[in-house]
Every structure is written in structure tokens, then in C-alpha cells.
């Protein structure tokens, strides 16, 4: 009778194979590009590991009004290194008009591309949540956010079955994306209110994203355009990866 031994070598090979399976459970085109950079490979491993090991769509902790803290504003529209004078001028004009002419477009792999004005967003069912904003720098702050679940917007436009990512474009010229698990998460909202008032300019007026299970920089400010895609889009020179930053920051 042939005996099956669990040798050390076999155990190591089995372990490596299952790790590989973990990382490659997705097709390469649905993972962020690494450009051969070991650090970005580590980010991708963290992404695959967290998506594989952490159970489904758990909600982050929500706090009470008594827990609200002061809230620094960093990377405001004035100081972003990427912002162009032309774009800043457009933003200033919209801001001067109380954002009545501002439109948020949703396009890409959707049944009907369309735009939303701020009033149209406010007419949709809203969600208010008091959550902790965790900055990659090391500080954190608790704020109350009111807005439309991104899921509602995506369902209104009708996302196609092949869709995998949602890409965001901002007035300060950033391009960033999240996967559908984060996009459809109940606490992922397009926030137009903060601490009971309209979202202040320095916190991303008129509308910012809240992605509560990732670091603060994924919660993009000053949104104007949303594109649903089938494949990963790293935003090129305006995205995190080519600027040397992790795309997935659940850690």
C-alpha cells in the first residue's frame, strides 16, 4: 500500500500553490498594474488577501454626534499640485453660482449615461453616517456625512453585467477607482453634506466620495465625473499607482 506522507517539501509547495491561487483568483486585467514594482506587487497581494479572507460587506463602526472631532482639510482644491488654472477657473465659477450649474456625469458601462445636478442628488434617498476618516499620514477624524449611496446612482444608470470598476474624476484633476465590492458597499456614498451642513469647499464641495473601508485618500473630493469600466483603469499620470501610491488601501 502506498503511503501518503505530508513531507515538509510537499507542505511548502502546497502552501505556495494556495497563495498563488489566492492572488490569481482574478484575471490579471481585473488587478491593478504593478509596472514590475515590488511594492505594488505587495499592494496587490494585500488587496487579494483582504478580499479573500475578510467576510463580505461588513459595515465600519458608526459613531454618535458626541464623538465628532475637529477635521483637518488637506489636499484642497487650491493646493493640489495637479490642478490646472483652467480647471480651477471652472470650479471657481461653479462655486460662485452655488453649484447650481454643477453636474455629475455617470457614463461607461451603463445602460443610460446621464448627469445629476446637486438638487437631483438631494431628491434621491439619502444616507447619513458618522464614521472615522483615517488618513494614510497617521491622523484620523470623525465626521458626519450625508449623501446618496453610490449603489443607488449605479442602479439608476443601470450597470452592465461585465462591469468591474468605478472610476472617479475630480476638479483637482485626480483619477481614482474602486472595485464593485466597495462601490456597492452600503456605506459608500456620494456625500453632499458634512456635520449637518452643505459640504464645505475644503472638504470637497459640492460632492465627495466616502469609501469607509479604505484610507482617506480614496474618498475623493470635488467629483464631476464617474465612469463604470470592465477593466482596471489606473488613471495614468493622474492616478495613484503612477504617482507611487497604493491603489488599494484597506490597510
Amino acid at each position, binding site marked *: 500500500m502506498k503511503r501518503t506522507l505530508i513531507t515538509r517539501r510537499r507542505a511548502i509547495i502546497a502552501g505556495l500553490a494556495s497563495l498563488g491561487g489566492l492572488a490569481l483568483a482574478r484575471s490579471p486585467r481585473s488587478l491593478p498594474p504593478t509596472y514590475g514594482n*515590488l*511594492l*505594488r*506587487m*505587495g*499592494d496587490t*497581494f*494585500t488587496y487579494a*488577501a*483582504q478580499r479573500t479572507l*475578510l*467576510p463580505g460587506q*461588513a*459595515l*465600519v*463602526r458608526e*459613531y454618535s454626534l458626541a*464623538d*465628532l*472631532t*475637529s*477635521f*483637518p*482639510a*488637506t489636499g*484642497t482644491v*487650491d*493646493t493640489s499640485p495637479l490642478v490646472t488654472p483652467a480647471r480651477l477657473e471652472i470650479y471657481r465659477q461653479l462655486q460662485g453660482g452655488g453649484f447650481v450649474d454643477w453636474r455629475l456625469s455617470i457614463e461607461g458601462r451603463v445602460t443610460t449615461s446621464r448627469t445629476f445636478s446637486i438638487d437631483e442628488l438631494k431628491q434621491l434617498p439619502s444616507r447619513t453616517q458618522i464614521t*472615522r476618516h*483615517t*488618513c*494614510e*499620514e*497617521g*491622523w*484620523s*477624524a*470623525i465626521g458626519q456625512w450625508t449623501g446618496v449611496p453610490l449603489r443607488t446612482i449605479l442602479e439608476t444608470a443601470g450597470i452592465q453585467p461585465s462591469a468591474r470598476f468605478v472610476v472617479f474624476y475630480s476638479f483637482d484633476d485626480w483619477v481614482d477607482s474602486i472595485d464593485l465590492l466597495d462601490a456597492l458597499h452600503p456605506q459608500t456614498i456620494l456625500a453632499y453634506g*458634512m*456635520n*449637518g*451642513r452643505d459640504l*464645505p469647499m*475644503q*472638504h470637497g464641495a459640492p460632492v465627495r466620495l466616502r469609501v*469607509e*473601508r*479604505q*484610507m482617506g485618500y480614496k474618498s475623493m473630493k470635488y467629483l464631476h465625473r464617474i465612469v463604470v469600466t470592465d477593466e482596471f483603469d489606473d488613471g495614468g499620470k493622474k492616478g495613484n499607482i503612477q*504617482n*507611487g*501610491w*497604493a491603489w488599494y*488601501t*484597506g*490597510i
Partner: protein
Amino acid sequence: MTGHARWVRISHWILTASLLTLAFSGIEILMVHPRLYWGEAGNDLTPALFELPISRNYKHGGWEKPTPFFADVAGPISSIRTYDIFNQNGWGRSLHFLAAWCLVFPGAVYLLAGLFGGHFRSHIWPRAKELAPDTVWRDMRNHLQLRGPQATGGPMYGVLQKAAYSFVIFVAAPLIVLTGLTMSPAVTAAYPFLLRLFGGYGSARTIHFFAFVALLLFVIVHVVMVVKSGLKRQLRAMTIGE
């Protein structure tokens, strides 16, 4: 039988490399925001537990005039940062997590092997009779007089040495891993008890820092003892093993 087992020698150097990388990248991350807090959240506009003068970000003061969120002017405020801070977290954070993966996998193998192979029981965990006050006192006196035993190139270890290894393996290392995980918003969404256990994100970050300080002190003492007891002999024992 003395000498280090091969799996101990291999994990020792993998863990050394990842620990040094974690310390290097961790210090970079701390330099970006050298303020530590107690509780759920904290930032430049709230009081710090303490601040470390380790980068140009220390008390930089580059803030616009604050505006209160509510009619109560003593309540939460907002302010725009005007100061261009030191921030190399693009590589710092990613390197930290890459090194953390290299700590967690070999670390888990080391823990399981040590637990079930008898290494911890026979060599690391102090025996009851070694904890007798006079034994501990004698070992302590020897250390204070800088009169350590000559290198044996592996176990058996003295009682203080065992206590130090036990502290690192069973207290400091698990604590630094768990507080690290508590700083991950995706992890605490799935396992919110971590935030309750450590008293919030801000507290977890501070405990993470103190666990680092404890490990740093251990490494310093460890290296001093290795050098004092015979560097060449000890290095040979932990590499080629004899």
C-alpha cells in the same frame, strides 16, 4: 544537545530582515505624523498624547484660521493645511505591509513549530523551578555585573534570557501584529472587537508604537549580549549551526 535547529536558524534571519524593514519603514511613517493619541481618533486640530521631534512636520503650525463646524465655537473645528509636509508614505506604507507579510507567514510557521515541536516548552518558556527567587536573583546579579555565561551556541538559556524571549514571542510580537491590524479600516469593519479591545484607532496606533519601542530595546540588548558572549561563536551557531 545544544545548537539551533535548522528551522530556528532560517526563521531567525527571515524575521530579522522583515523586522529591520518594518522598523525602517515604520519610522518613516511616524515621521509623517509624529503625534500619538489615545482614544478613537486624533489629528493636528485635537490634543495629542505626546509629540516626537523627528521630522520637519513636528509642530509645523501651517494652518489657516480655523472655522467652527457648529454655532458652539468650542466644538469641532476645521482648518486648511497650508504647510507642505514631509510625506514619503507612498513607498513607506507599501514597504511596511510587504515586510509585514514576510513577518506574518514565517512568524506563524515559527509559532506553530515552536508550540507543537516542543521548542517553546523545552527552551523558551521558563520552568517553575527556574523562577525560584534565588535563581532569578543570581541571574539578575550576573547580568548587572556584566558577567554573562560564555556562548554555548544555542539552548539551554538562562532564566532572564528565557523571560526576554518569551516576552517577545508571546507578548510584544502578537501585540504589534494585532494593533497593526486594528489600524486597517477593512479589518476592523469585519472584526470590530479589535477597536474595542485596544480602545480605538488612536490608541491602537500608540500601543503599536510602544510595542515597537519594546522590541527595539530587546534587539539592542540581544545584540549586546551576543557580542559580549562571543560574536563569532554565536553567529556561526545561528547560521551554519554548530
